[in-house]
């Protein structure tokens, strides 16, 4: 099995390196095909590993020592267990799809080879992240995906907005990474190891505050990657990257790394339910917070990004409440339909010549039938309509909140579910229904390459069936490792009321969205100029606040530090000392005026001064002696 493990792990790297060799050369489809092929290999290996794990085994290998000094020993160790194999499946599936899709999507881009190199490198990092058997190995992947995210968001580096967004993403993640490092430090100095098995086996012996702090710091790390409030702004801006990147990195895989971390570290979080509750509360807040911003946004990709953010909130609610398997399950399901949604959006963008405002689209269902179907499917899944994936995963989280008697969370999530349905279908309606507003802009849309649609098909299938079909086997498998808690509402009546009620609520929201946006778009000036609309539209002014409170002052402070402190104080003091000495010389060397008379006088003055001192000393000496007598 080790062979499959290494194959699954390293084939993306091989692909990336080979594609990277052609990075600066002209486009060769070869790189796209090669990397996709290698990812398929990785996928197949993962499937084999999955069957192996489903049979009840796990694979744990230690490739080689990485860092060893003092008592610290960190190997490159990889583990394929129930949790990581789930993640591997998600990652390899979505990334294979995205790779194939990208061959079409990026076919006209100059940086084709480079793109595939980066994309495969990302997959490799993500695999390291999920497969590592220790925290620092996870951190390698953690930072690796950050790097690839930076590369890919800033892929069109000639665009100022893209490079800015790339840097923002990287730096914001770094803030969280610091917390994560601190968490790792704490683990090491308290337990002497960073291996998962050792840490989890001994975590309970630590005093409560220590565990709490470890949990908090690790979670802050997770917040960065998963773009939780207040580190969320980068995710929306990250949409500057090519759309397949958004699908893979900023929807399906990388952003869920935070959830994965919490799930992986469940023995830690199980010890500290209070922190778990806080996580859940933050998750619920983010779920709603992001959904509200999605309600009014006018940028197709950003809407989906906020939706992702919102769904991540859901996952954190589940994870925070201790329903780790539920969180992971929603993670998986979400990966499929959200990636699908993004890829569909990519088709639309292509068709619309990179136009992102859905208000300038409309009526695309005629020219882009398949895309319409796929995106609608994905939206339905996202909204959580039975029997699609979202129903099984998302509604389960609602149930978890309910069963755990967090009714506030439950209500928030329920309302958010309605919003989710609304903004998803608002988007679908605006894009595919109604007037062909894009004609005004002289755009004649066309459907994407067929093979791109085929590539999306597996995701569509998964979006439909993954909930219904996978739930039981997944549960059986993953609870080998994660706490097996069934979240059943024991009262049947309540269960049915809730399920049907939720479904109805969601469907109503969908209907409202269709009603409002499917025919003609009426712009309600009054609403739009209202405070709430503006607040939401401007993302609660948070980016602006960050800019004013952090970015600009930091730059100004930096300039101050350089021009005022460094040059005018620190350096000036040093130069000042030197100059003072020099100037003293310039001022005083005139005593050497060359005149013999004054030279003689200096001698006599010297003598007289010495004499005076001698007299003074003698007087003092005698005075002391007299006293002594």
């Amino acid at each position, binding site marked *: 099995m080790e062979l499959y493990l290494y194959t699954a792990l390293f084939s993306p790297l091989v692909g990336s390196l080979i594609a990277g060799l052609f990075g600066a050369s002209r486009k060769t489809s070869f790189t796209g095909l090669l990397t996709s092929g290698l990812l398929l290999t990785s996928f197949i290996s993962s499937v084999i590993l999955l069957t192996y794990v489903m049979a009840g085994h796990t694979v744990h290998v230690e490739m080689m020592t990485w860092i060893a000094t003092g008592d610290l020993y960190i190997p490159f160790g990889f583990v394929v267990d129930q949790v990581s194999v789930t993640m591997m499946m998600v990652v390899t599936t979505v990334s294979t799809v995205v790779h194939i899709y990208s061959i079409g999507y990026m076919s006209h881009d100059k940086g084709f080879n480079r793109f595939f190199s980066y994309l495969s490198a990302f997959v490799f990092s993500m695999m390291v992240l999920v497969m590592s058997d220790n925290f620092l190995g996870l951190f390698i992947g953690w930072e690796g995906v950050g790097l690839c995210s930076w590369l890919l968001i800033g892929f069109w580096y000639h665009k100022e907005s893209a490079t800015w967004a790339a840097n923002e993403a990287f730096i914001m993640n770094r803030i969280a990474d610091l917390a994560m490092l601190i968490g790792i430090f704490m683990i090491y100095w308290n337990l002497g190891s960073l291996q998962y098995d050792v840490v989890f086996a001994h975590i309970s012996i630590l005093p409560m505050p220590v565990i709490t702090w470890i949990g908090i710091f690790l979670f802050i790390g997770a917040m960065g990657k998963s773009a939780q409030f207040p580190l969320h702004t980068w995710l929306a801006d990250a949409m500057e990257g090519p759309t397949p990147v958004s699908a893979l990195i900023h929807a399906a895989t990388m952003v869920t790394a935070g959830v994965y971390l919490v799930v992986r570290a469940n023995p830690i979080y199980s010890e500290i339910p209070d922190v778990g509750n806080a996580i859940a509360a933050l998750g619920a807040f983010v779920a709603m917070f992001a959904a509200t911003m999605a309600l009014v946004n006018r940028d197709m990709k950003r809407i989906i990004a906020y939706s992702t953010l919102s769904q991540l909130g859901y996952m954190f609610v589940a994870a925070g409440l201790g329903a780790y398997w539920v969180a992971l399950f929603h993670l998986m399901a979400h990966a499929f339909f959200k990636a699908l949604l993004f890829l569909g959006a990519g088709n639309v963008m292509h068709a619309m010549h990179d136009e992102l405002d859905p208000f300038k689209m409309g009526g695309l269902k005629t020219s882009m039938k398949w895309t319409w179907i796929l995106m609608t499917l994905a939206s339905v899944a996202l909204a959580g309509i039975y029997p699609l994936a979202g129903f099984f995963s998302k509604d389960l989280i609602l149930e978890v909140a309910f069963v755990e008697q967090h009714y506030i969370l439950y209500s928030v999530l329920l309302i958010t579910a309605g919003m989710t349905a609304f903004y998803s279908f608002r988007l679908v309606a605006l894009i595919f229904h109604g007037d062909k507003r894009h004609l005004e802009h002289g755009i004649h849309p066309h459907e994407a390459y067929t093979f791109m649609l085929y590539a999306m098909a597996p995701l569509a299938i998964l979006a439909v069936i993954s909930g219904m079909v996978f739930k039981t086997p997944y549960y059986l498998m993953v609870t080998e490792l994660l706490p097996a808690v069934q979240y059943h509402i024991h009262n049947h009546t309540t269960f049915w009321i809730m399920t049907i009620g939720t479904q109805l609520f969601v469907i109503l929201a969908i209907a409202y969205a269709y009603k409002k946006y499917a025919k003609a778009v009426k712009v309600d000036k009054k609403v739009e100029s209202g405070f709430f609309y503006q607040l939401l539209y401007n993302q609660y002014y948070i980016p602006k606040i960050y800019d004013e409170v952090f970015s600009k002052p930091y730059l100004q402070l930096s300039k101050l530090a350089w021009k005022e402190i460094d040059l005018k104080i620190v350096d000036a003091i040093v130069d000042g000392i030197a100059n003072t000495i020099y100037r003293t010389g310039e001022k005083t060397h005139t005593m050497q005026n060359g005149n013999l008379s004054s030279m003689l006088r200096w001698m006599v003055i010297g*003598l007289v001064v010495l004499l005076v001192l001698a007299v003074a000393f003698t007087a003092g000496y005698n005075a002391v002696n007299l006293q002594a007598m």
Partner: protein
Amino acid sequence: MLEPITVSLASLNVTTMAPMLIAIVGALTILSIDLFKDGLHKSLYVMVALLFLLLDLGAVVDFGTIFLRNGTVLGMFNMMLIDGLAILSQIIIVVASMLFIPLALTSKRFHEYNYPEYFALFLFMIAGFQFMVATDNLIMIFIGLETASLALYTLIALHNRSKSFEAAVKYFTMGALAAGFFAFGSMVLYAITGSVEINQIALSLAKDEYANIGYVLLGITFLLAAFGFKLSMVPFHTWTPDVYEGSSAALAGYMSIVPKVAGFVVAMRLFEFLVHSGVVWLQVILYIIVVVTMTASNIWALVQSDVKRMLAYSSISHAGFVMAAILIGSTQSNTGLFLYWALFSFTNLGAFTMLWVNRQKNLIAGQSSDHPYEKFSGMIRTMPMAAVVMALFMLSLAGVPPFALFWGKMYMIGAAVSSGYTVLALIMALNSAIAAYYYLKLIVFMFMKEPMAAYGENYLLNASLSLKTIIGIAAVATIFAVIAVNPLLKVITLFVYNSGY
């Protein structure tokens, strides 16, 4: 009725005067040669002087072996005192003189070397310095000092430029004043103790427990002023830059070494017993003088525009640095003094000889002194070897290891640290840092600036084989000093320790 004086010749121990007598005989020989035939080439006199100096050195070294066997030798009614200090300083004096005298063999003609009297005076001067260090009798010191000084004034004047005369007059006048100080100081000490021999004075003072402290300080003050002049301590230093500038570079280099070492030995004899006897005043004053001399001259050296003048100030600073040894007064520090000065003599003579080599007969337009910094700019392009050697001397003077002076500085600072003068050690160290600036300035000009066309033809004008040899010796000594330090230290420690210092 006068009693017949009966003194056995053996008890006189006339041989104690042998080294000085050799120098005097040498001088007389040169004068007699000139009597028989005048107009002989200077190389003859150089060689004759060198020969006599060699004999002189031989005699001194011979005394060294005697000293190691039998200890201190007295002679001539206890006027002569041949102890370790005397021997060490005489060696430095004679060796430095031997390095100096070939510098007369320049390729350009200079006025003074045409006179055999120049060489005769030179030898008289050496005899004077030797007398000065080989006695602890104030009269003898006075005679030696004045013999040497009067000869030196003349040597300076013989350079025959108006600046030289000015320098000679200034030096002479101030020297006369210092002589007055010395005489007066001696008189005061004589009045208190009734003796003019330093060890007698010390004994006498110790006996009545410095009862007349006020008068003692009065006497010391005058002697301090006199030696402050000789050793160019601030504020008695004012003659130094002018005299160095006025005299030829070679003589300036010589002056920075030999008169100083003679002065140091006398100062050691005079002041150290006082420092050890707990005359706090002297400790404080010496401390101040050392610090002020080091620092002030360094600061003035910073702003000089002429290399020779800069080196003059730098010599003052080095003297101040070494004066710390007398303040500290331990065997280690006194050893350090001689070590420092031995190493310094090579480096400094080398540096001044480099100036001497580049001496031009006539100044070009706009040139106000012989050796402005600009003259050296871009030397690495025009004469790489010369530039490297000059840089070597500068680095050594700055105390950059492993060159000669570093070892001296290190040992001196070590001595200060060992005797508890930590702050002084820090001041000494920091002064080396300030000093580094002006030495660097020359390096900057030589290595980092473009050559100036105007000075193009004025380099190495004065070079001759013998000058180059001297520079070579100095350079080798400077670079490989590290090898010499250990034997030097051992010998010097032996001599100094056995002399009771």
